[in-house]
């Protein structure tokens, strides 16, 4: 059973390292936000593994707080991206969909 705990720790380490690679490479800020989300999920799994290994329920409130903080982080990064049309890289998509933030007629229910 001890081996399995070690395997869990090693898997989580690999997952964190790989998502940090994406955090460094990520072409856009949304990719980075996504890799931070995966990093946070690994941290949550790690905290849960700690709680399970030591039969220690004191870290459970931390799990709750972290899950909510991750949600708020993703939403605020998305809002931040949506408000900055000037840093926007032009792609063929623009012809069909205008940049949000610029006043336009086809906003479906306002900004995201």
């Amino acid at each position, binding site marked *: *059973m001890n081996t*399995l705990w070690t*395997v*869990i720790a090693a*898997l*989580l380490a*690999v*997952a*964190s*390292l*790989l*998502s940090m*690679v*994406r955090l460094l490479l990520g072409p*856009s800020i*949304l*990719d980075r*936000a*996504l*890799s931070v*989300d*995966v990093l946070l*999920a690994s941290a949550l*799994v790690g905290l*849960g*593994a700690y*709680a*399970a*290994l030591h*039969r220690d*329920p004191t870290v*459970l*409130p931390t*799990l*709750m707080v972290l*899950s*909510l903080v991750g*949600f708020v982080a*993703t*939403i605020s*990064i*998305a*809002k931040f*991206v*949506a408000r900055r*049309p000037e840093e*926007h*890289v*032009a*792609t*063929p*998509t*623009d012809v*069909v*969909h205008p940049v*949000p933030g610029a006043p336009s*007629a*086809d906003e*479906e229910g306002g900004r*995201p």
Partner: protein
Amino acid sequence: MSDQLVTVLDWIAILCLLAGALLSVVAAVGLIRFPDLLSRMHTAAKPQVLGMLLVLVGIGLRLAPVEETNVFNVGTLLLVGLFQVVTIPVAGHIAARVGYRTGRIREDLLVRDDLAERLARKREEDSARRAE
């Protein structure tokens, strides 16, 4: 609780935790290998929902022999699971929407783009209305 039952519960719990950790690795590998934002979001949601729920089940089974705080543990675990299941789809939807609207996705990888058709139709209707 008898010792045998505790051992069986421990094994089930550790298998759940192992599956959760494996899903984390799968998501990280997907983050590295997949080509654009939307397909990366597809793998990234796996450890956040399924992996988290498996880990919570594992913690619950491991903590079951600890008698004195059982009610609070189960309540906290249920709340964490509920928050994850409710918030992750919302966050994913908003991130994908912003990515689409700001042109951060790769058009050449899309098989079918219903939203573009809808937006184009809406724009035509709007310009027709403005012309009247």
